[in-house]
């Protein structure tokens, strides 16, 4: 009634608007989206410099910005006998390089309107520069210092070592971090590289010094392992000239560091096992459930992504709709396969209210088993397929997005052309495929279960579920 009289009022003042169309609009039916735009992957021009540096250029002229990303094959998997070395070394690369110390270097970068970051993942090191094209010359000079002439001064190594020791200690305060570390220690046994934290432990950190860091750098960061990805408002010829001028004469000496062979397999359990870490008075319990995962190059990859989107990879996934929406146990529940050069873990996780810790575990296992036991309805599979496929154009929006995709894919020997191939593979996934990969890759009866919470309140309930043998790990054992 009120609505009608107000709408009638609109007729008088609504001169610029078409009132007839407002009346004609039938809101009982959702608009059918039109045809989606085709996924267009930008061309990548590849050049290999004589010293072995690979250059990949993507022209993108919307904004006068350039993203330059040096992606060096290696990363944490080179740590060997020195846990945490790769991330420590990479973090130090921009803490002084060329003639500048840490503060002076960042001052210069910021003055140029640029941002520069360094880091290490499991499979690579990254030096990334984002800069307005106008100041890309002097900014690239700084990036060249960081990549080829890092200082690793004794002062800076000691300072960063002490900071890392302090930060490692603070990890104990964060239950999500504690759960993740405990989970990796339980799924990957001692001797497997993924057993360890990428940040190492206090003992390995305490032994860091300038000479060790430099030796690791010399063996790990080398032209033949380096790809420089340039994306932005620059031509292929300009990029080739700018990169060759600065990185073309880069030479290294000494022996390259080899990737240690993984001789210890991930833990394949015969039955599930529970690991508990006490956090007195915790308002929530952090739950991680999982097992060793899958190779990124598996032919099951597309089906696996569809299956995980349904299980815990989207807002409307079963884990989230159950634990968050239906039961109100959590602010969010999720699952995912982590991909690395060697298979990373699968993990399903949530932070849940302390007094429903056991009930939450029941729901996790119900959903994991249901994915295997019951074929997913076709419309649910279709929604997941659309979600995965149609969001792909948005993954190539910014220069940083494009460079990140190129770097991520090349870890597995893939190119941007993988994206349309993935889209096509997703189209072909059937409910039967989803069930097949669920049965193959979800192993809830051989799970590693980690709970970080107030054990005085939650332990009895967890034990009563008889998920498997349980043991308590001290937080000081998990975060060493």
């Amino acid at each position, binding site marked *: 009634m009120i609505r009608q009289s107000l709408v009638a009022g609109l007729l008088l003042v609504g001169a610029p608007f078409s009132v007839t169309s407002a009346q004609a609009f039938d809101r009982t039916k959702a608009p059918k989206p039109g045809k989606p735009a085709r996924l267009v992957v930008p061309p990548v021009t590849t050049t290999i410099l004589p010293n072995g540096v690979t250059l990949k250029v993507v022209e993108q002229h919307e904004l006068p910005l350039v993203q330059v990303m040096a992606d060096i094959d290696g990363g944490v998997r080179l740590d060997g006998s020195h846990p945490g070395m790769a991330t420590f070394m990479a973090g130090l690369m921009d803490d002084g390089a060329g003639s500048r110390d840490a503060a002076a270097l960042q001052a210069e970068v910021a*003055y140029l*309107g640029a941002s520069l970051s360094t880091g290490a993942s499991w499979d690579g090191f990254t030096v990334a520069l984002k800069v307005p094209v106008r100041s890309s010359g002097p900014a690239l000079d700084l990036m060249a210092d960081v990549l080829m002439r890092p200082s690793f001064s004794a002062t800076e190594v000691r300072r960063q070592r002490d900071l890392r020791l302090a930060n490692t200690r603070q990890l104990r305060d964060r239950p999500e971090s504690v759960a993740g570390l405990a989970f990796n220690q339980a799924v990957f046994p001692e001797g497997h590289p993924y057993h360890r934290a990428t940040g190492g432990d206090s003992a390995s950190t305490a032994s860091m010094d300038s000479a060790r860091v430099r030796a690791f750098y010399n063996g790990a960061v080398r032209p033949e392992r380096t790809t420089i990805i340039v994306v932005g408002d620059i031509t292929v010829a300009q990029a080739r000239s700018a990169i060759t001028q600065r990185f073309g004469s880069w030479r290294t000496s000494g022996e390259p560091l080899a990737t240690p062979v993984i001789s210890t397999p991930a833990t394949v359990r015969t039955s599930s096992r529970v690991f508990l870490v006490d956090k007195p008075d915790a308002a929530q319990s952090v739950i991680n459930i999982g097992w060793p995962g899958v190779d990124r190059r598996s032919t099951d990859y597309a089906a696996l992504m569809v299956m995980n989107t349904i299980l815990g990879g989207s807002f409307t996934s079963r884990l989230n709709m159950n634990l968050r929406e239906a039961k109100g146990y959590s602010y969010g529940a999720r699952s995912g396969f982590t991909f690395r050069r060697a298979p990373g873990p699968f993990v399903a996780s949530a932070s*849940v209210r302390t007094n429903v810790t056991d009930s939450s575990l029941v729901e996790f296992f119900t959903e994991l088993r249901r994915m295997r036991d019951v074929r997913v309805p076709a419309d649910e599979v279709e929604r997941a397929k659309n979600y995965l496929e149609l969001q792909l154009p948005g993954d190539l929006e910014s220069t940083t997005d494009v460079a990140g995709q190129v770097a991520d894919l090349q870890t597995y020997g893939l190119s941007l052309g993988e994206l349309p191939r993935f889209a096509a593979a997703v189209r072909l996934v059937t409910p039967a495929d989803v069930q097949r990969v669920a049965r193959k890759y979800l192993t809830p009866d051989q799970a590693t279960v980690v709970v970080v919470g107030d054990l005085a309140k939650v332990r009895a309930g967890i034990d009563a579920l008889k998920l498997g043998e349980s043991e308590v790990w001290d937080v000081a054992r998990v975060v060493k």
Partner: protein
Amino acid sequence: MLTRLMRSLLFSLALSPLWAGAQSPRLRVPATVDTLPNGLTLIVHEDHSVPTVATNVWYLVGSGDEKVGRTGFAHLFEHVMFMGSQHAPYPEFDTRLEASGSSNNGTTDEDRTAYYEWGPSNALPLMLWLEADRMGWLLPTMDQAKLDAQRDIVKNERRQGVENQPYGISGDLIPPALYPKGHPYSWNVIGSMADLSAASLDDVKGFFRTYYAPNNAVIVVAGAVKTDSVRRAVRRMFSDIPRGPSITRPTPAPFTVRDTVMVAEDRVQVPRVYMSWHGVKSMHADEAALDLVAYLLTGARNMRLTNTMVYQDEVATGVTAYNGSKKLDGDFNLFATARPGKNLNELRQTIDREIARLAAEGPTARELQQARNAIEAGFLNRLESVNAKADRLQSYYFATGKPDGFQDELDRYQRVSADDIKRVVNTYLKGPRVLLSIVPMGKKELAATREAIQ
């Protein structure tokens, strides 16, 4: 058009120690503004670089509009908005968007509640239809069960972000110490558990009828769209939603901060000190200068507090300053985490000394230009994303009534002088403040005190 103008702007960025001034081309992000007869405002910006679109709806209501005893309600209501409406029953809001390749989210702060969708540009009609339905037809299907479900989820969000986070209680403790009792900014946006428990179905209905009306909403659409077709679609879908009542906004009285020292114990390994001062509201003449002060203190490794506390004296693992200018008022905030074994008075002394030095000497020309360039670069990088652009258009329109405030914002930073920096540090950071120490259980002796121990 955007490309050409921005190119010139960025060219001048790095090379000019001072802003090029009048002859510099103006940065423009063209956007149309329309207001429907029911009061709904529509802003459209075209960007065809990738085939995606961002839709962004702001309702001009936040935690600052809440009543005593109902803290956290604006944010709880944001959650309730996803529980389905008459023509799109739960959980179709999410299932339909995901089936179109789109994602969505919502955020609430002190002043406004924002709803976002982003995805392929062909999904725009669906996004608008869903937003129209919950703007006009939320209540027919609203019930106690929906409210209770989201209340539980919000309490879990609070547990995850406050109770179960180290130092999480700072968000509960600082606002009521800084702002006087009853001031709209004197409570945490997420609210208290007791007030969340007290929220009723009648509260939901009353809040919706008052604040969730077209005359209290602004829609921004940015992306690979045609402006005219967006206008037509919005008119078709939103025109018959009735205008709501006029809204009485809070008008807090002026106040002076009471100098306050607080200590809280938490399950943490190392202590952390927080300081908050009374700042300025957004678009105040000193807002840009205070943003720059935050950078000059902790924005980079060579900046005052970071350099002294983390690099030279090595008393802290990290220090962060930020200016929080909001619609009605503002605050300037800082926190620093101690190195193991350090007493928070050591950190406090260093902070006081560096603030006094910045107030007395001001920044060097080089420092100030670095701060301006860094802030501008961060700002320009965000223009690559249609989501971020849509959010900026909303912010500018909210604050000034004009969506394309990009160049004006850059100008505000360029106009700040070293003397301005000295003046605002003296005016705002040397007055009374809230000093909060969060220390490990049983370690109150590590807390900072009002008078530093020499």
